[in-house]
């Protein structure tokens, strides 16, 4: 690409005019906002795509997006996220990071770090972006950035079944789940873990898991399905356990992909009440 000379920088007004012209062109190219709002608001027959013919002719993949827009909106999920954001103390209100690659369970035992016998819980009423969640941490000195963590998941013979790491483990009330998040190097300072359960319909709820954090910053969440608070009265279903590891007081991450005060781990589990 050829260089753009600073000597040819347009006058401020000309630049602003050009930006306005470009914005008008862009608006004219895509579907009208009014049509999109009507679709989202249920004023359109979802099957009626007449207003979007030109778009779909050029971009057939847009159909999936339009279908989603026309479908029921997860208002409850949005409202919960809004409520959680409103009530979160600013310094400790992380947004859930984008999901990492799902962690597949290891067969047999995973390497487990030595932990102190007692589990330390400190709960704060921290409400997070996606849902309210409880925060467990040990009081430690203040923080350099965390190293990368890796996750391992293991369970007893009732959980890991079948062949292949791709199978989602099943967790009943008495089945045991053992999750370990291991830092690449020993961690100095506080480590915070925040948990969510992501339901099949996308709804997110807090997950108050009994958490142990070793002096080196390794995190362990272990227990039966009942003890972990995962088994409820609902139907059997596949959920995602989302764990965020970070520092207390970390700013809410804007850039989920690259600015990582929080590291996210997703663990697929099939709940079997």
């Amino acid at each position, binding site marked *: 690409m050829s260089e753009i000379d600073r000597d040819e920088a347009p006058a401020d007004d000309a630049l602003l005019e*050009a930006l306005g012209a470009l914005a008008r062109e862009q608006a004219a190219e895509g579907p009208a906002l009014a049509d999109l709002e009507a679709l989202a608001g249920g004023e359109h027959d979802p099957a009626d795509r007449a207003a979007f013919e030109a778009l779909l002719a050029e971009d057939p993949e847009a159909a999936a997006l339009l279908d989603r827009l026309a479908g029921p*909106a997860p208002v409850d999920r949005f409202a919960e996220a809004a409520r959680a*954001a409103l009530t979160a103390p600013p310094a400790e209100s992380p947004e859930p990071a984008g999901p990492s690659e799902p962690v597949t369970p290891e067969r047999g035992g995973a390497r487990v770090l030595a932990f102190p016998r007692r589990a330390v819980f400190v709960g704060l009423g921290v409400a997070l972006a996606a849902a309210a969640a409880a925060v467990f941490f040990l009081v430690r000195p203040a923080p350099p950035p965390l190293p990368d963590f890796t996750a391992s998941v293991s369970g007893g013979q009732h959980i890991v079944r079948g062949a292949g790491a791709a199978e989602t483990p099943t967790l009943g009330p008495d089945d045991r789940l053992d999750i370990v998040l291991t830092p690449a190097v020993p961690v100095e300072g506080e480590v915070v873990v925040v948990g969510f359960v992501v339901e099949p319909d996308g709804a997110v709820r807090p997950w108050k898991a009994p958490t142990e954090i070793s002096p080196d910053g390794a995190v362990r969440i272990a227990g039966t399905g009942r003890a972990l608070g995962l088994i409820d009265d609902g139907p059997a279903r596949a959920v995602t356990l989302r764990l965020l590891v970070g520092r207390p007081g970390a700013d809410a991450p*804007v850039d989920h992909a690259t600015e990582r005060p929080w590291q996210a781990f997703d663990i697929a589990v099939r709940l079997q009440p």
Partner: protein
Amino acid sequence: MSPPTDDAALVERALSGAPDAIRALVERVTPVVRARVARILLRRGAAARGRDVSQELDDLAQDAFVALFERDGRVLRSWSPDGGLSLANFVGLVAERRTHSTLRSRRQSPWSEDPTAPVDLGAKVGDASPERRLDQRSLLAAVLDRMRAELSPKGLRLFELLMIEQRPVAAICEETGMTSSAVYAWRSRLAKQARALRESLLAEPLEGAR
């Protein structure tokens, strides 16, 4: 559309933390938020979308609600029914800004999608080669994206009124309740910000620039 006083009362109750008010407010503006996010995703085209676009729509819409309510509702508290923006329009602008910011922060190319017709930036570049005009078009689009991500809702609305809709200053004063001096001051501020963003983009490494 409900009267501004109703919206103001609903916003006040929602910001006080009343769950039913929060839900009612969210339900009212959800179509606007989702439509604005969808428009941005559609504009980016299939090749630029990446993630499951259906999931992306509601993830970004949720993010917009977080932007409104986080930090004790700082952004939502800045809305006033007398400020020239309806609640729906204000929320829509916040949604657009947050979406642009989030998508940009994923370290996509700062340059936009394929350019179409070149835009004449003035006499100095009027005789530029086609290749140079295409580069400038990409630069312009990148500046526009940045402005959408960084301007306040008020700034975005003034940019819309002044530069996109090209409304006369008197009409803008009437809609917004601003004085003509204030509108001119905003225009000057927008121009300076556009220039600063352009300079900033020129200084960035060109990842995947076309």
